[in-house]
């Protein structure tokens, strides 16, 4: 008995020691496999993001002028960037875009999502798809298309306005280009944000609505008092996406510049400025510094926003 018990206990001990051991070894083994699965991504990530970033950062510490050659200048390029009126002007432009464009996109996306969430007909599915479709169009194609729509010659505006005896606004003039760009971006991105918000709305337990209805809440009250607060973390995420995108504004103005070179100068936004510095004026070093300076600004603004909305986003 004793022997059996010892045997049993020893066996038990053995088993337990084994089972103590096993998860650990398994875990490490799995970890190794994990690295392997990560590796293809990591190789691409390091080769195409980390290394170029490091290289660009190194470049940004040097200066290479047309006539005088290359010199190490440390932070000089950054000091120059943050005192460069063109760069600062570009930042002011994108800040203006952020102030107008982000609320515009949010309002459209939120309204569409709330309405679609309340409907359950085939029409709502169809509308959902239609609102989302612009996002599926490549940005460059979308901008080119709008370029034609805005064109006084090919666009529909002149014929529409002629019907009521008015002359069409010049969408591509200096005064109107801002609104024209806001329109393109809102058209393209509101659908995407709508889908994010809509998905969040779908995730809310419908029991809450029932309770609210029992308490006598109207549809509007449900929307403003229940739905919106409950999806605030998604809203914060959408604003962050929009904020980062807007600060890096590039593709739409760059494409529209093809038909409005006067109204959209080469340095309209910081990203366009960096692009033209590097590829039109061969100032790769200063362009790298501008890019990093823009990166810093984007980081600071995103961080600031996330910090201010930490309660809504659930980060706290």
């Amino acid at each position, binding site marked *: 008995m004793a022997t059996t018990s010892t045997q049993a206990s020893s066996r038990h001990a053995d088993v337990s020691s084994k089972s103590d051991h096993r998860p650990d070894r398994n875990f490490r083994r799995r970890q190794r496999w994990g690295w*392997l699965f990560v*590796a*293809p991504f990591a*190789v*691409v990530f390091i*080769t195409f993001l980390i290394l170029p970033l490091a290289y660009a950062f190194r470049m940004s510490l040097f200066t290479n*002028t*047309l*006539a*005088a*050659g290359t010199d190490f200048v440390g932070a000089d390029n950054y000091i120059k960037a943050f005192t460069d009126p063109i760069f600062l002007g570009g930042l002011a432009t994108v800040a203006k875009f952020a102030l107008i464009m982000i609320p515009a996109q949010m309002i459209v996306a939120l309204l569409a999502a709330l309405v679609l969430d309340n409907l359950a007909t085939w029409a709502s599915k169809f509308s959902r798809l239609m609102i989302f479709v612009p996002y599926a169009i490549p940005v460059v194609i979308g901008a080119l298309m709008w370029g*034609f729509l805005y*064109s*006084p*010659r*090919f666009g529909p505006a002149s014929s529409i306005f002629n019907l009521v005896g008015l002359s069409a606004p010049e969408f591509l003039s*200096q005064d109107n280009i801002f609104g024209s760009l806001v329109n393109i971006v809102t058209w393209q991105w509101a659908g995407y944000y709508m889908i994010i918000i809509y998905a969040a709305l779908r995730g809310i337990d419908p029991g809450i609505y029932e309770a609210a209805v029992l308490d006598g809440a109207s549809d509007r009250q449900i929307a403003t008092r229940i739905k919106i607060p409950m999806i605030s973390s998604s809203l914060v995420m959408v604003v962050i996406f929009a904020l980062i995108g807007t600060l890096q504004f590039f593709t739409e103005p760059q494409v529209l510049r*093809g*038909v*409005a*070179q*006067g*109204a959209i*100068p*080469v340095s309209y936004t910081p990203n366009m400025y960096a692009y*033209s510095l590097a*590829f*039109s*004026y*061969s100032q*790769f070093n200063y362009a790298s510094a501008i890019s990093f300076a823009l990166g810093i600004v984007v980081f600071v603004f995103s961080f600031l926003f996330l910090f201010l909305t930490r309660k809504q986003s659930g980060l706290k």
Partner: protein
Amino acid sequence: MKAKFLASAGIVAATAVALTGCSGGGGGEGGEAAAASCTNTVVNTEAPQVTVWAWYPAFDQVVDQFNNANDDVQICWTNAGQGNDEYTRFSTSIESGSGAPDVIQLESEVLSSFTIRNALVDLTEYGANDVKGDYAEGAWEDASSGDAVYAIPVDGGPMGMLYRQDIFDAAGIEVPTTWEEFEAAARTLKESGSDAVIADFPTNGRAFNQALFAQAGSTPFEYDSANPQEIGINVNDDGAKQVLEYWNGLVEDGLVATDDAFTADYNTKLVDGSYAVYLAAAWGPGYLQGLSDADPEAVWRAAPLPQWDAADPVQVNWGGSTFAVTEQASDKDLAARVAMNIFGNEEGMNLGVDEGALFPSYAPVLDSTEFADKEYEFFGGQQINKEVFLDAAAGYEGATFSPFQNYAYDQLTEQIYAMVQGEKDGGQALDDLQASLEQYATEQGFTLK
């Protein structure tokens, strides 16, 4: 398990190799690396190849002609984009130290932008001066800097005036020969109630605007590649101011349009009767014929560019391109031979003239009676070379461009746009341009003359 582990490790390794392979593939000697991607078919695969970037119309025929005629060297041609698109790629290749072709088409106005980056070979070492006599003087001047020759001229852009005879007749306008008459014609046209304005003055005209300034004696830059740290900037000289004020007056009186050039709108307006006159270079007729939506009733004719002083005519040039040999070329001697010979023979140049509507800088074709007597159906059989462009080319004396011409043009566009918007007058616009270019040049380490 082990096998799978090895397999995945293999995949990772293969990916890594493929990636490094990618980054290595772009480099190498222009020759071998790019050989696989020739647009043309190489005739003699045994012969050494020279890579060429160019965007000339109908260039494929010229390349085939060259490859068939030359047994010991073959061209591998790529169209790397037109104008700025190509320059951007070339610029990036220079920066990375690899990936440039052996021979490259460059407009003469950007040559010094690349010589200052030591990207082009001085062709005098490879016998360029032996063929100097074969080229129009102004074009050769544009391709040289001091004693050095950085490119072989191919085509030029002497300027003339293409006009709509039908619109002129309807408004009772005589063909203007001076800018004063041009303004009077613009007023007559407007008063006649025509839908057309006399012409377009694009704010993004770049080389076009600069050419008009040059006609009144403006010499915006002084620059010599032999002394690359020094530059003289006079973009706000009297000639430029006179011309810009003149056009600003026409703009303010609503006599000309200010549409951006080279947009789809502009292309349509050129041929649908929105403008009565197209102030054009010699490549303009070819450009016009390629545009769609043309007014079928249009009657086009060509005349010399209006002058400031009819007694002392000045001829100017807009555009025109060359072949340069890059520093990255593996066999510079061979590359130089190709640069000199692609269009440096009658067969090649004739193909360029007939199929690509080029205005040749190669004298044996330029001076030939066939070229002078060529009748253009588009102009109702008019001999536009003899009547307009040959004189313009003969009178052109060359111009000097800055080593940051692209920047200068972008700034010019901004200033002219501000002027057209009524923010400043022409003189102020050019003074501001002068200030911004001086500042830029100083920042770039130049000494101002």
